[in-house]
Every structure is written in C-alpha cells, then in structure tokens.
C-alpha cells in the first residue's frame, strides 16, 4: 500500500467500490443513474481525499458523499422521474450495511443462476445485464410489466435462498 495518504484513500475507494455501488444502486433504483453517481462520488472522494482521516470509517465517509451525489443527481433529472426524498435517503443511509461486499456470495451466484427456469434467467439477464426496464422486457416477451416484476421478485427470492442454502451447506 502506498504511503501517500491521498493514494491510500483512492485505494480504499477501489477496495470498497462494490459496496459503495450497491449503496447507490439500492437508493436510486436505476442502474444507469447509479453508474453516473458512482463516478461523481469517485471524483468528490478524490477531491476531498485530504480531508479524510485515515483509520476512521471510510465507508461511512464515502456513503455520506454518495448520498449527497444521489440527491444532486435526482435534482438534475427530469421531474417526472421521482426518487426517494432526502429524509428517506438520510434514514436509509444511516442503516446501510457497512460490512465488506461478500465476494463468497458472488462466487455462488453463477451456480444458482443456472438453477433458474430458462424464462426467469432470461428476464434476470435482460434486467441486470442488459439494463432493460421491466416495461421494455414485457414488450419483448409479450408479457405484462406486472408479470415481469413478479418474475424478478421471485427470481431474487429464489437466488437468495439458493445462495444461503449453499453457504450453510458448505460450512459445518
């Protein structure tokens, strides 16, 4: 690790990037906006790196910056696209998980994805990988948007249970 404090902060950002991104993804409910906010957050972290006290809670500090960037990004956007209010975002930010992003869970994901029914897998790919909105997925598959949302909900519940099962099965 570098001795330059500013570089240490940037390294911390890289190490915690997945967690910070997850924080933004959950607050915005919009993948494209989340990517923008993550980049803005990085730029601010970089500018303010000297203000960060090493050995204090980096994630809490980065979440604080990310939270303001979420609000700023929502304010910049068209009024038609609503997001959480500042109060809700503040309340959620205070209770956001701060443990490291669980790479072990991520490693179990591909195996569980394979267990999804083909149509559910397709919807998961269209949504999470290709960034299509449920309305667009519904149009492509000739479903209703509500049916796509239900399929996504079920897929999430299934995958969560699958990952938990595999994990508990692995550890004695």
């Amino acid at each position: 690790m570098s001795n330059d404090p500013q570089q240490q902060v940037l390294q911390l950002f890289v190490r915690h990037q997945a967690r910070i991104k997850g924080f933004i993804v959950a607050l915005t409910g919009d993948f494209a906006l989340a990517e923008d906010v993550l980049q803005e957050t990085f730029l601010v972290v970089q500018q303010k790196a000297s203000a960060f006290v090493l050995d204090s809670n980096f994630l809490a500090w980065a979440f604080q910056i990310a939270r303001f960037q979420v609000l700023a990004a929502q304010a910049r956007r068209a009024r038609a696209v609503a997001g959480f209010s500042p109060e809700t975002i503040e309340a959620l930010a205070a209770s956001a998980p701060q443990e490291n992003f669980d790479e072990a869970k991520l490693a179990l994901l591909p195996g569980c994805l394979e267990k999804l029914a083909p149509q559910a897998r397709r919807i998961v790919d269209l949504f999470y990988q290709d960034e299509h909105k449920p309305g667009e997925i519904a149009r492509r598959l000739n479903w209703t948007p509500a049916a796509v949302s239900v399929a996504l909900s079920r897929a999430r519940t299934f995958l969560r249970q699958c990952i938990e099962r595999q994990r508990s099965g692995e550890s004695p």
Partner: protein
Amino acid sequence: MNDLRLDHLIDQHLDGGMAAEERAELEACLRHSAADRARFWDRAETHILLREGLQRLTAEAPAKKVRRWRRPFAWSAAVAAALLLAVLVALPRRVPEPLASLSAATDARWSDPNVELTLRGGELPPGPLRLEAGAAEFAFSGGATAVIEGPAVFEVVAADRLLLRAGRVIGRCAKDAAKLTIVTPTAQVTDLGTEFGVAVDADRQTRVAVIRGAVQLVAGEQPRRLNAGQAVAVDVRGGTAPAAEMIAEFSKVAAILPAEELPVHDAANRLLDPAITDLTHVWNGTVGHVERNAAGRVRISANGSRLWPLLWQDVPTGAIAGHAVVAAVQALQPDEDPLRGLQNAIIKVVFLDAAGREFARAERHFLRSSAPRGQWIRGQIAAIAPAGTARVQFQVLLNARGLKTGSLLFKDPSLVVMEAP
C-alpha cells in the same frame, strides 16, 4: 405493514418506475420503522449482488473492458496512474455516439492493442491517438471523413475538428452540411466543400493541398482561400510558400481508401457461390452464428459472447501484387433482432502469403444500428495487393460487441482483382 406488502413495494422501487402513491407508502414505512429499513437493505442485498455479478460477467468479455468513460481524463487517468488498477475500476458505461468512429482501415497498426480493440468496437479512445503505420479512415459524426496515413499522431476534439500533430490526413466533405477543420501546430484548415490534404512534417511545417473544391487556410494572421490544384507549405513562423508537389503526393494517399464506389462486374467476381448456398465446402462461418434463414439468406447473429462472428471464403489469386482488390457486399439489418448500440457490419479483405499466413488487411465498417431497417446497404473496401500475395480471404463480419442480440443478412458478395494501373 405486512412483510409481503413491504417486499412488494421495495421490489417496485428496485425495479424502477414506481407509482407515486406506492412510493409515498414505502417512504412512510422506511422513515418510521427501523425494522422496515433493515428489511429494505436485506431485500436490496440480492439485487445488489445480482447487479454486481452480472455486470462482472459482462465485463469479462474482452470487448467490454475497453468501454468509454464519460469523464475519461479525470477518472481513468487519475486512477490508472495512481493505482495501476485501471481494469478493476473500469465501470461499464452507456455509450453516447462517439465524435468520430473508425470507418475503414488498411494495414493500420496502432500504438497499443487496446486502442485497436476500442476503435474496432466503434468507440473513440480519449486523448491523442498514434497510428504507427497503414491508413485509417474516420467518419466524423458531423458528416465529414478523414483518411489518416501513419505514422501519425492526432486527436479528434469535436464532431468536426481534428488536431494533427504529425502525419498526413485527407479530409473529405461529401455532403454540403459536412464540415471539417484540421488544426496543426502552425495552421488551421477549414474545408469549403472539398477533398483536401494536410500534412505535418518532422520539422513541424504544415503542408496543405486542395484536390477538389476549396479550403480556408488560417496561418499567421490572414485567412486565405485555396482552390483545387493549389498547395502551400506553412513554416513555424506562419510564412507560406507554394508546394505544388503535394498534389501528387496527396492523390496517392487518397487512393489508399478511395471515396468513390468502384463498379463491379459479375463476370469478374472471383468468389465461388455468390448466392452463398454452400456453408460447408465453399463458405465458412463462425459456428453457431452463421446460418441460412427460411428465405435462403445468410444471417450472422450475435448470440452473445462473440466479438466478430464472420463468414469467409478463401480465393487463390496467384501473384497480383500492385493490383487493386475490390470487395463488396450488401447487408441488411432485419426488423426482428436488429443491431444495437455500436454494433455494425464490416467487410474485410485479408491478404495471405504462399504459406497461408495473414500479412496485410483492409476493412470497412459500413452499416450501423442507426441505419434504416429492412434496406440493403452496400459496403465496399478496396486495397492494393502487396508483394507476396498468394490468396485473398473475403470476409464479412458482424461487429457484435459480445452482445446477446443483433443480426445482419448478407447478399451479393463480390471480390474483383482490377487490372494493373
């Protein structure tokens, strides 16, 4: 609130596009109940995991590693330089139309393979580009094209503006609306409906020649107009002198990637089975990506994971060094499964020596996702066969960019070896 209802509301938020009343209901819960907030993060965790996991799966396909940055300098330069971890932090971005994209190349050798991959993917890497050898044609989103001959160092700074630090450029503005300004260390050349050449030499002198039409030259203080057949050299102090020899020199560069379509006669077509009926003995296709559809047309489909699925045929030519080889094909983007984003069609000619080794190539990108659907569009590439050519490989490719969807139909392939000049 019961958990089922809360989960439903949280999922609505995560899926995007939540109705206002439902949002108000969810926000009331989240603001007032710590248990509900915990449930929100718990439910979001799988969502976050899926997003991260599937994004990484995408990023593992090599084409995606070189996506464009919205803030190329501040972000990537800072991180790459500071941390040497550029790949780890390469956030995939939604790609706006680049200022200019590579439309054709002849034996182009770029300073590094990432630049080549990015350019061939239809994107424009930020900052100055170094073309070590060969020629590359760029289509500017402003409508002009520029053929750059290596060795050259240049940078596309706007949809109609090229900075040339070294090397030679032929600018072409076929349409009236198209404009192109080439800025060199000593001069600025703006087309006035034209084909023109600009060179920056090792001594930083700029030379300008007008092949067709006219340009405005700004060097020193006075802007002046140069007409077809005129050529000047501009020295580092802005002084100008005639440079008639430049006309012939630039005409040679212009011939590397000709602007006009060359006519092709069926009788001269060296390809076997131009109806593309035999995909086992005569034609070759990337397995799983090339097939004939119900109407008998050849279709190349992305189907995920592939960067450049292709259809090809080898043509023995004998010694043809110095002859122009002209390849052409018609491509159509179908209504069902059309191209997406920066996907496009490529026509390519590869020169093979007697041992079957590929040693020279030329290619053109010609049908982009913005092209009208259901319409045949012709693509053509011409190249001079280098010494040692024994065979020529004709290729048509789909620049699939590793996406799961997108397809093209092809017909009327031709490969013609022109008479020696």
